[in-house]
């Protein structure tokens, strides 16, 4: 056994830290915060220049062929700093699916633009009437000559306001069982019939609801087989179920530590001497370590294509997000009234980090499969319990 991440991973972590110091300026951070958009063209261009858009892809597909522990170092560091990487990650996730399942023409048309960071692709799986149950999609795609006409709506199409395409799951066969009547399309957003409406969220991030009214899409933008959309989507989503939330935990416990070392109580004693504060720091540090270990194990299972990844990836997501939420709540309570001040208040503690994390953490236990979905997966795939009736 060996718990070292390896020289390459540590080297890349250092490079990413230096890169973020240079590129992710306070001005860019403020731009992301005030607009709530999790994409920044200048940032994406800088990532492209470093060749980091597709770190973990095989070299023959245009990636860097980095191992999962190197990719993790990049993910952990960018999330620790809250850098605007979400647009890149959804774009490259769709691009990856196209590179594996797309036609030669689609690869020629889309992949070079994705690799040039010239396009943004948003995800359109969830709908207003279905949350975690993506297979219940009701948005319709109906044949029309050589193409398709799409009608319906998608919820939480984050970055749609700056995106070129939505990678969408639509129902093409209403008579088939729900998983077998779906097809995926790459729907261009800049066309008649598409309406994008901003949806503001608890964390300050802007997401969107997108409406499609008889939107025409050529058959050349269908990804994968007709009625084979579920398989196409799960191929892409397999990446999301091992998403890392240890970066956020790291950011939070560091902010708590800095605060504890600089603030004093009414009697002038440093808060770092308060046993309750010390206990919370120790718990947060420990939970961060466990979150990292569960995530790293999932990354190794993925590399080996080990089927136990399904449940073990869910353990990583469940543990890290549930503990993050508890850490955020208890940290805010420890910090007291001044922790309530938001980032735009000049006297905000740690730049408003504590109140912001309470908002942000709530979302992490919901998106990419709620905690209840993860528990169902673990109960079934790891513990071998019967499906609940």
């Amino acid at each position: 056994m060996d718990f070292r991440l390896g020289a390459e991973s540590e080297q890349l972590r250092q490079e990413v830290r230096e890169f973020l110091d240079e590129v992710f300026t306070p001005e860019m951070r403020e731009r992301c915060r005030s607009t709530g958009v999790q994409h920044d063209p200048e940032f994406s261009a800088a990532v492209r220049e470093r060749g980091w858009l597709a770190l973990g892809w095989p070299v023959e597909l245009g990636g860097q062929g980095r191992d999962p522990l190197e990719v993790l170092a990049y993910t952990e560091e960018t999330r620790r700093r809250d850098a605007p990487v979400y647009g890149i990650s959804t774009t490259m996730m769709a691009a990856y699916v196209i590179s594996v399942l797309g036609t030669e023409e689609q690869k020629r048309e889309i992949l070079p633009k994705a690799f040039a960071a010239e396009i943004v692709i948003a995800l359109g799986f969830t709908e207003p009437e279905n949350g975690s149950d993506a297979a219940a999609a009701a948005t319709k795609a109906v044949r029309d000559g050589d193409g398709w006409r799409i009608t319906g709506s998608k919820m939480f199409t984050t970055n749609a306001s700056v995106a070129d395409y939505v990678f969408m799951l639509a129902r093409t066969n209403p008579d088939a069982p729900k998983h077998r009547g779906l097809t995926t399309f790459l729907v261009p957003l800049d066309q008649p019939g598409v309406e994008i409406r901003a949806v503001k969220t608890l964390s300050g991030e802007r997401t969107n609801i997108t409406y499609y009214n008889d939107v025409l899409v050529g058959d050349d933008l269908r990804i994968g087989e007709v009625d084979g959309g579920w398989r196409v989507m799960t191929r892409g989503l397999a990446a999301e179920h091992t998403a890392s939330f240890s970066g956020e935990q790291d950011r939070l416990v560091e902010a708590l530590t800095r605060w504890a070392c600089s603030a004093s109580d009414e009697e002038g004693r440093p808060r770092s001497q308060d046993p309750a504060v010390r206990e919370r720091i120790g718990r947060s540090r420990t939970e961060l370590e466990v979150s990292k270990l569960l995530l790293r194990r999932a990354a190794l299972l993925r590399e080996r294509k080990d089927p136990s990844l399904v449940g073990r990836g869910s353990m990583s997501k469940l543990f890290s997000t549930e503990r993050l939420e508890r850490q955020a709540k208890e940290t805010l309570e420890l910090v007291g009234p001044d922790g309530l001040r938001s980032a735009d208040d000049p006297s905000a503690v740690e730049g408003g980090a504590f109140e912001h994390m309470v908002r942000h953490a709530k979302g992490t236990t919901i998106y990419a499969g709620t905690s209840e979905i993860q528990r169902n997966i673990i109960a079934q795939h790891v513990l071998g319990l019967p499906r609940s009736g």
Partner: protein
Amino acid sequence: MDLQPSPEQQQLIDAFAGLYGDLAPPEAVRAAEPLGHDSGLWRKLVTTGGVEMALPEDRGGFGASLLDLALVAEQHGRHVAPAPLLEAQVAARLLARLDKPPVDLADLAHGHRLATLAVRPAEHGRAGLVPAGAVADDAIVLAGDRLVLVGLSGTVPVHNLGCLPLADVTLDGEGHPVLAEGPAAVGLFAAAVDEWRVLTAAALSGLAARALEIGVEYVKQRKAFGRFLGEFQAVAHRLADRASEVDGCELLVREAAWAAEADPGRAAELASMALAFAAETARDASHEALHFHGGYGFMLEYPIQLYYRRARAWGAVLESPAAGYRRVAAHHLSAAGERNR
């Protein structure tokens, strides 16, 4: 990074899993209560090399790493084994670090003599609740800044929640052999307690994993209202939470054991993390497993109560999880202070 035990480590795991499986079934654990010591099991552990392996090669041992010992301790915990293996290993390793140990290490290795460690320093001439103190011949005790060896004839076992062989040890004056004094004594003691933390965490990790298995097996075969208990999400979801913690706990404890040799700069912080997290994980896993047995869980007849009680007792002999987490913070804050200097 490699999270798989090596082939040699796997052999070690299998060998001890077999030994405990044969000699420490729940009936044997129950029969050894209330003292918590099974002399047949203990003899077998000694003749298999359970103590000998923990000593360095140049002191007549097999030179096992702390990680090797932790893998054995996991099996120990899976069977809530009534034998003082962890304490004997930790005490023998401490004595082996002395130039001239006042005890023949071969006697320890071959079970002719059993030494243990008082994991908390003596206060007012008394070391309370010494683990294995009710069955050991000697206890290593830190009294002030002196590390002494206290003979244990006539100690009275303390009846306790976990049926552990605990005893209060009284120091009588100046007669005890002094093992070390001053900073050397404090350093030896701290290192040994950290080893005890890691091995006890490993035992708790194994206990937690086995308790969860027992609970899962039960809800798969027990029906209520015409359905298996495991079909109810109120049951399944809590077990899923515990399963995530149990997996995380195993990784954390193994990392802490590995770090003792491979990453000494983080070893002390990880040792405190491991014990605090393992104590909570074992507590919560055994809680759900017992609770989902319903009334049967409350009966002494079912094995799950053996796990439930030891989960709450093993780690508590030294410190609460809250105190453990405060130790983690102390390591982190002093490192943060260094960085800011």
